[in-house]
Structure formats: C-alpha cells, structure tokens
C-alpha cells in the first residue's frame, strides 16, 4: 500500500483571532497541525500497519507547512513532501486540490489518500472531494470506520441521518472524522527523526503546472456581531421558582 496523507498547518483552536482595519490579527500562539489531520495521519498509519507499505505526508504552503509535516513524521509517517512556490500566495480550494492531485500523480502508484474532514481555519471541507475528482478517483468522505481488503475499501460515512456504508475499488481518497480513532502521540524517536528531516520542496515547475488563477478571492475580514444583551440572571427561592421564571422568559422570546 502506498499511502499519502495530506496535512495543513493551522492556528490552534484556542487561539484568539481578531480584526483590525479589515485585516486579521493573531496572537503569538505557535501554529500546529490542523487537529482533524491528526485523525487522517492515524488512519493512514493504521492502514500501513494492517497491510504494509509506506505513508507519505504532503502539505502545501510556505515553511510553516513543515510544522504539520514534522508532526506527521513524528507520529510515524515515512517521509514528507512540501509543495511550495512563491507564486502560491493566495489560492482557493480548487487550486489547492489541483496542486495536491498533481503531486499525488507525480508520486505515482498511490493506492490511498487520507485527509482530515476540514481545516479549522478556512473551514471549507471541500478539498478532499475536489482532489478526488481531479484524480478521477472515488471520494469517501467523512469516514468514521475504514476496512481495506483485496483492493476494495469499505467505509462508514457520517451523514445527517446516521451512517452510510460505501464500498469502492482502490485507489481512493478518504476524509476522516473524529469518530475514527484517537490519534497517537508522537514518539520520542519519531520527534528526533522529524527534527532531523530535510523536507523536499516541489515547485510549480516540478509539478508541470502554471501559476494558478484563483476563482475565489478573500476580501475584508470583520468581527461577528457582538452580542449586546446583558445577561439577565434568574434567581429564586427554589429550583421550581427559578424554572417557572425562566420558562416565562423563554416563551416571551416567541421562538418556540
């Protein structure tokens, strides 16, 4: 099995993000691997352990992307590749998918590509399906359980109504949700290996692609509307009295 896991570097979820003059301002929180992508690395490593083969971590971006790649290496990925080029400053999801698909083709012989369900910065969650589409491979998204046997993959997908069980022939693209399995912690040896790793960079020229034109551009940022309402504290002599008052307040909002 030749497995690729696509990872991204993001701000951690506890980071404060503010807007000043239409621009984003971050506090100095160190960046991390996108939390969803840890599940993708775990999924990739489990398949390797079950079936043999290699796991290659792939990311897209400037040197910050190495944070996610080194985390994947520390968890147990065999090698890592970064797609990086000065012409890739602002790209949309489709351009990102095109670059990832080109890198996966260049690697050659890939059986399985794993993604996290979405990145916690852009929150789009469409890159796995778009990458699959551009490769012409089936997309098995939102997978919470995966079984591979004799070149066939079977996944349970988390949908609004419960789970959908889908099968396909490899190669395929997978995106995994949190139900999948707790991601393992990097090992001491893994961290040492990741620290020493020289991660190769593939440019647009290496991938044989022109500079991408973004179909979607990001404009101004703004803060979500502040909740202006002061919190009205409901008190009373007994839980029943408090509940009575609170129920009246809720009903007066006319939202039920």
């Amino acid at each position, binding site marked *: 099995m030749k497995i690729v896991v696509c990872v991204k570097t993001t701000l951690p979820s506890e980071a404060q993000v503010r807007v000043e003059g239409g621009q984003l301002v971050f506090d100095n929180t160190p960046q991390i691997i996108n939390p969803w992508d840890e599940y993708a690395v775990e999924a990739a490593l489990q398949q390797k352990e079950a079936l043999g083969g290699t796991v290659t971590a792939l990311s897209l971006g400037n040197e910050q992307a190495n944070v996610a790649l080194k985390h994947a290496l520390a968890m147990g990925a065999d090698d890592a590749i970064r797609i990086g080029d000065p012409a890739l400053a602002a790209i949309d999801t489709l351009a990102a998918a095109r670059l990832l698909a080109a890198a996966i083709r260049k690697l050659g012989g890939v059986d399985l590509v794993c993604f996290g369900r979405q990145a916690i910065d852009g929150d*789009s969650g469409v890159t796995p399906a778009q990458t699959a589409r551009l490769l012409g491979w089936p997309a098995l998204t939102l997978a919470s359980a995966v079984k591979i046997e004799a070149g066939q993959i079977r996944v349970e997908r988390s949908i609004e109504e419960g789970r959908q069980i889908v099968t396909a022939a490899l190669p395929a693209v997978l995106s995994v949700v949190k139900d999948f399995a707790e991601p393992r912690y990097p090992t001491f040896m893994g961290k040492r290996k990741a620290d020493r790793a020289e991660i190769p960079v593939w440019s647009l020229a290496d991938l044989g692609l022109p500079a991408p034109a973004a*179909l979607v551009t990001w404009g101004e*940022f703004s803060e979500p509307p502040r909740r202006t*309402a002061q919190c009205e504290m409901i008190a009373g002599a007994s839980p029943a009295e408090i509940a009575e008052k609170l129920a009246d307040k809720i009903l007066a909002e006319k939202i039920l």
Partner: protein
Amino acid sequence: MNIWVYIDHFKGTPLPVSWEALGLAKRLGNAAAVMLGNHLDEAVQAAFDFGADSVLLADDPALADYRAEAFASTLSAAAAAQTPDLLLFPTTSRGREVAAMTAADLNAGLLVDVTALEVAAPGVVATRPVYGGKVLVREVCASKPALVTLRGRAFPKPEQQTGRSGPVTKIEVKAETQTSVAGYTTSEGVSLSDANVIVSGGRGLTVFPGLDEKSAAAKGFALLGELAAVLNGAVGASRAVVDAGFIPYAHQVGQTGKLVSPDLYIACGISGAIQHLAGMRTAKVIVAINTDPHAPIFQVAQYGVVGDLYQIVPALTAALKKKLGK
C-alpha cells in the same frame, strides 16, 4: 438571473435547509430546483410548494442511493449544457460534496457555508464565518457559474403554499459506478444543524454527589434529553464530555464539532471555552445554567441561572411541559 438550487434529500425526504436556499434564489432571480434521486414525486411537489419556478429532474433507480460521483456528474453535465449563472446548495454532508465536485468539473469558484450573499459587480459576494466562527470574511467569486453552499438557518425558510406547480424538465442521468452503497445505520433524534432548539451539556454534567463521572454524565444527559424532547430539540455537548467518551461525537458543538445557529441554545454545565462559543454564538437566544457565576458562558447568554443543573433542568422541563400544554 438563472439560479439552480440543489435540493438535498435523504431517500426522497428533503432536508428543510434546502428550502432556505430556494427562498434566497427566489429573491435573486429565477429559481429552478435540481432534484436527483428516485421516487421523487412528493419531493418535487414540495419544491413547488416552497416556491420553485421549475424543476430539473433526474428520477432514476441508478440514483436511488446518494453517491457523490453519480450525483455530481449528472449535475455538472446539465450545468455545462444549460449554463445557469449561480448554483446554490445547502451546506449538508451531501450538498457540500456535490458542490465541491461540480465546481471541479466546471472549473468554477465555490463559496462554502456562507451566511450572507449578494450579487454585484464583479460577481457573487458572500460573507462566511472562518476560524470556527471567530471572524467573518467577505469572499468574491468571479466565475460563471458561481457555486455557493448556504449555512443552515442563516437564510429564512419561505412559506409553504400547497398546490403550486410548474414545468418539470428531465435531465440526463450519468450513473457512474465508482462507488456502491452497502447499507445504512440510522440514528435517532433531531440532527444538530437542523434543530430549532439545542440543549447542550458540558463538564458540569460529570459532577454529581455519590456518582462517578460516567454515571453522572449518563444521568445528566438523560435529563437534557427530556428537556430537548419537550422542545422538539436536539442534544448537544461540549468537547470535554465528547473526548471523555460520555456522548458520541455527532453531538459535539464548537470549532471541531458542529457550528450551529438554533433559535434557542440552552447551555448546561458548559463553562464557555472560546472554541465552544465560536460554534454556537449565532444562536438567537442563549440560556446558561452553571454553578460558577464567573463562567464565560454568561457573557454571551441572555438569561443565566447560577445553580445545580440536576435540579434546574428537570424543573424547567416540568414548567415548559405545563406551559406548552404537553
């Protein structure tokens, strides 16, 4: 302006968020509902009832189960031939995926999970929450067509008027067979993204005298479930209790769970970490019940109760049951 609206459904039952997209399309131009599946007669009538000017229909046994590749190929072939200006999708698991693949097929721009949308030069301009809802960004899509998925409950649902009708045009089925569906396991209860009311529990649910954390959580979530049932709502949870294994991940609200906008959000024993607030602060009314008067959740709540949720929640269930005549 010619607008196509992808109607998401499960086995012929449309998800209400599809009608919100139809309502937006009607305000912007001519709204054609695109319906892919099998045995869709009732769903087609519902689309007209909710305002569709016409229906584009692929009703075929090959589309009986949702399969991303077949649905996207059918939609993108029709869109390539008939060149609509704008395609709207509800941000559901299926809507997001079909939109993603169709955008790739058409080499078109895609705006995901937007909460506001306008059509102006140089194209479609949308606002959407990013960084888990901590900030909003304006996005511009200059391609034709533009593809947009709409966040559930961000746009008003149109009134249903029974008995409306209009032209139904068949579109060609592209029954790709890259994947096959082996079955389903369905879950009980209301889905979080569609819920008008969410009753949510956090770490406060794990503290009850004489009980271990697991038993306390089981007792607490049972009480939350009773309140949710009276309000036809769904049960949510903070990351802490999901990570501890006390409730499945499908219930998690917050930056690494579901981002929700219900009319009423009742937070029980949830302190209000920034990741949780990002996922629920667009709720219309927030009620917080917590033993700690300094919990950050009270800063976003309209109504607060400092008290023991194991006592307040059942009392609230009883009071609302009586007042709602249930």
